[in-house]
């Protein structure tokens, strides 16, 4: 990434900002800065479709910045930018996170991103305890994937607040029982959570539950 070219684009107004506020230049800068903080390893990149609408469900450890790690790792591995769902709608933090791809916690936001062929990422409920358990998934948000027939991809992040090494593991698309109506979204949310939990369990080294 050429910082001078970025600065020139920003000054001339020729940079790109999408309808939700994402600026690819900001993501590039953040990724470069994150390279100084984390040494990332990404596995299972082949499971994420290279194009088209895709819903990602990722485990959430706020202190370990797991969502930022997932965003940077997946962009580096596949070139696709995760749109993290759940940013606050308050200035100035909200607008800054929008530039980095964040969107509001609203089913319409997720559905709109999927219709536009993007990759919204729903964090599991934040887990503050170091027990290796993955939080539950908001079924209302996952429902957008059913309406748009988008695949649901589980992603596990293994990182710690103080360590330099982090790992992002991408799993195969979640398969849920064929149901209709409200039960379909509930079962898909449960299946997504179980898939993320399975990835976490498989990727965690023995005796290192504090990583997740």
């Amino acid at each position: 990434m050429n910082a001078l070219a970025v600065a020139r684009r920003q000054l001339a107004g020729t940079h790109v900002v999408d309808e939700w506020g994402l600026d690819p230049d900001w993501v590039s800068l953040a990724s470069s800065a994150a390279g100084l903080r984390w040494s990332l390893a990404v596995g299972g990149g082949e499971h994420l479709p290279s194009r088209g609408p895709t819903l990602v469900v990722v485990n959430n450890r706020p202190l370990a910045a797991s969502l930022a790690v997932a965003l940077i790792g997946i962009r580096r591995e596949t070139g696709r930018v995760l749109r993290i769902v759940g940013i606050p709608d308050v200035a100035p933090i909200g607008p800054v996170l929008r530039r980095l791809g964040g969107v509001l916690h609203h089913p319409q936001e997720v559905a709109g991103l999927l219709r536009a062929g993007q990759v919204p990422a729903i964090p599991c409920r934040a887990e503050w305890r170091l027990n290796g358990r993955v939080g539950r998934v908001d079924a209302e948000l996952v429902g957008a994937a059913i309406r748009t027939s988008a695949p649901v991809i589980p992603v596990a992040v293994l990182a710690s607040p103080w360590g330099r090494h982090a790992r992002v593991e991408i799993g195969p698309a979640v398969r849920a029982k064929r149901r209709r109506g409200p039960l379909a979204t509930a079962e898909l949310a449960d299946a997504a959570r179980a898939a993320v939990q399975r990835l976490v369990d498989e990727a965690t080294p023995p005796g290192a539950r504090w990583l997740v």
Partner: protein
Amino acid sequence: MTEWVKRVLITGMGSELGSHVASRLEAEPWVGAITGIDVDPPRRRLRRATFHRIEPLDRRRTLELITRADPHVLVHAAVWEPNARADPATAERWTAAAAVNMLGAAVECRSLEGIVARSGITVYGRGRGDPSRPDEAVPPAPTTPFGHSLLHVERTAVEAGATAGVPVAIVRVAPVLGPHVPSPLGRMLRLPAVPMSLLADPSFSVLGHEDAARAIVAAAHRLPDGPVNVVADGAVTISQAARLGSRWPLPLIGPEWPVARLLAAGLGSPIPPHVLEIVHRGRTADGSRAAEVLGVAPQRTTVHVIQALYEWATVLHLRPTEAAA
């Protein structure tokens, strides 16, 4: 297949959008007589359309004209954006009166087959936590006076359509911009220094006036029932738009906004609440259904529309070749 030639009545024909719609309808093979009403005359030369200058508050003349014209399709473009062609109070009064008088009169027409109402994505509002790119399924929740005016137009049109038993196409356009379109957003973006929110600078989408006219004409032909968003692809931020026009963005935090608005008003560019909302909260909508419902999609992207806003025809000074007799 031969189509019936239909009579079309355009309210708000004197606006840039109304004039464009009339001009395009004149070229449509399915359109017969075109009648227009507005308080201002059309902004371009029309060959076939008949124009009637009637005040929006003049219910008697409005009813008389519309029932005499007996249109098959009523295109209701009589919407006054605050600080575009009228001051905010007049714009609100005229928009409300025009909706009731003109759409109400249309119900009396025996030949009426459908109504097309011009609305805007401002009707969705931008409250805290609301989706930033709503589609047509999101219920309108306006947060500005202009948004409330548009919602009143929509509700009146739906009521008129239900009474007459005809479909009502509600065309929710993004802020319509063009080099010659009277628009408070366009005027603000052309100031030498463009006020912007330092803390937010959100993205917004617009729509070229030609694309807006094309969408309304398509709606008049197809007469779909229900709302449809028409939004140009892509988005820009205020600071980005200013730089595209070689203007300087003027970052403001909060307390200085009233002063900036006063200064802008003094420079001939008042900033009404719905434009201020764009500056602080952004405004876009999902217009992906337009192509399917109307059969047309905007041809110009938001960036192209903004660039066109700053383009002015070059003035060529011609030297006289021979002395006048």
